[in-house]
């Protein structure tokens, strides 16, 4: 009976988190179009509802009613499964993210490692989709994307080793607490190299512009999901946006202090202590997501050779250097 009670609490937590995140996913698309529109001196969506605020709802309903086309000679079971794998890999990483002090679905010791494991599984959804579609564009897109995701996964993992060194834990709760008691109050300053590598790898890992070569609308049509339509397509999009939210949360938790405010800020402005932690977390998260939009509107797409060179020739040596520096610093102090 007690077990049943606990399970129902877990399920309620999951439903709450997933609904909040899906709401954010829907409105992340809206704000993306608005922000980029404004940056390019356009209006963005404005027809559906006041200021176009109902646009995501309309998009969602439309994707349900769109005909679902399965190309001839495609591998049907794999074709069906690929978007489900994508959304599973993206979504389940939410289980170990503490949104504020004491709220976490599963407070396991492995926190960061679980997120890394899940993001490495995201490659399967992409490759299987590209392979099963029986289309040249999808095949090429899937291949490119897989090579990109695995290349940047290495630097993503290595960039977080510095944080693990400083905090001495994988658990995201512990990392936030270790940060708030550190000298600067957050790790973005002592781990500036790691933070830089993390940002670049996170953008590449989620296949966002300027590293969106797998989709590359102008050359590969839509890459690995060229043959996907209707709600399957929506699942891929949702997985991409959830991935963005996960990576932003990881940046907030590992480098920007999570739900805490640095002690010296609190000393200067004591009234900020009254603001609940979840507000800080969400503000920092929105700032990170805005950053994603900002670079999308600013930077042109990388060429594929540049992308691979950046990952292997710059980010990996930088992250190893960062580990070396952090290790030496930790030995001295």
């Amino acid at each position, binding site marked *: 009976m007690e077990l049943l009670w*606990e*399970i129902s609490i*877990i399920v309620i937590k*999951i*439903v709450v988190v*997933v609904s909040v995140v899906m709401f954010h996913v829907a409105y992340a698309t809206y704000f993306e179009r608005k922000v980029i529109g404004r940056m390019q001196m356009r209006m963005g969506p404005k027809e559906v509802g006041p200021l176009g605020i109902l646009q995501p709802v309309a998009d969602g309903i439309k*994707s*349900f*009613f*769109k*005909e*679902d086309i399965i*190309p*001839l000679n495609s591998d049907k079971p794999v074709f069906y499964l690929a*978007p*489900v794998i994508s*959304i*599973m890999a993206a*979504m*389940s990483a*939410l*289980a*170990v993210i503490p949104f504020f002090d004491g709220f976490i*679905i*599963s*407070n*396991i010791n492995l926190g960061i490692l679980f997120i890394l494991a899940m993001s490495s599984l995201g490659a399967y959804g992409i490759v299987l989709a590209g392979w099963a*579609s*029986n*289309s*040249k564009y999808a*095949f090429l897109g899937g291949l490119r994307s897989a*090579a990109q995701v*695995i*290349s940047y996964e*290495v630097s993503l*993992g*290595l960039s977080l*080793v*510095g944080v*693990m*060194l400083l905090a*001495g834990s*994988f658990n995201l709760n512990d990392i936030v607490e270790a940060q708030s008691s550190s000298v600067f109050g957050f790790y973005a300053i002592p781990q500036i190299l790691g933070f830089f590598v993390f940002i670049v790898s996170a953008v590449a890992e989620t296949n966002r512009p300027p590293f969106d070569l797998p989709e590359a609308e102008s050359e590969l*049509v839509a890459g690995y999901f060229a*043959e996907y339509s*209707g*709600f*399957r397509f929506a*699942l891929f999009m949702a997985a991409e946006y959830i991935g963005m939210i996960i990576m932003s949360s990881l940046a907030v938790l590992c480098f920007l202090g999570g739900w805490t405010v640095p002690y010296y800020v609190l000393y200067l402005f004591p009234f900020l202590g009254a603001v609940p932690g979840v507000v800080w977390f969400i503000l920092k998260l929105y700032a990170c997501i805005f950053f994603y939009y900002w670079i999308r509107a600013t930077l042109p797409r990388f060429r594929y*050779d540049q992308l*691979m*060179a950046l990952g*292997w*020739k710059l980010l990996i040596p930088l992250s190893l250097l960062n*580990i070396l520096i952090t*290790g*030496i610093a*930790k*030995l001295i102090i």
Partner: protein
Amino acid sequence: MLNEPGTYLPVGYLPILIFLGFSFVFGLGSLVFGLLLRPRRPYAEKLSPYESGIAPEGEPRQKFSVKYYIIAILFVVFDVEAVFLYPWAVAFDMIGLYGFVEMVLFIFILVIGYVYAWRKEAFVWD
């Protein structure tokens, strides 16, 4: 919380199991739900894979550069390296200078391979 093997239940991971199940049901459920709503009127042209409006030609799965394979091998190697770094990082306080020197040697050996790959232009795409 921990116990001898055979009696230990990793209850801390129960939420993760439930979450995996939930996300699977979410993904599959939304597809099935959509199946009830959407139209289905297939014909041959609609079902053929997209190829800029002309009829598809040749095999969709073509041969590709062997470089992808090298990138995959290098990825496996560096992923294993990172996996060694994780326990090293969290156990750093306990192993100190000794562990640090050890890891520097470990990474140095791998950097030799990395430099070799660089010199052989494994990271150059044309």
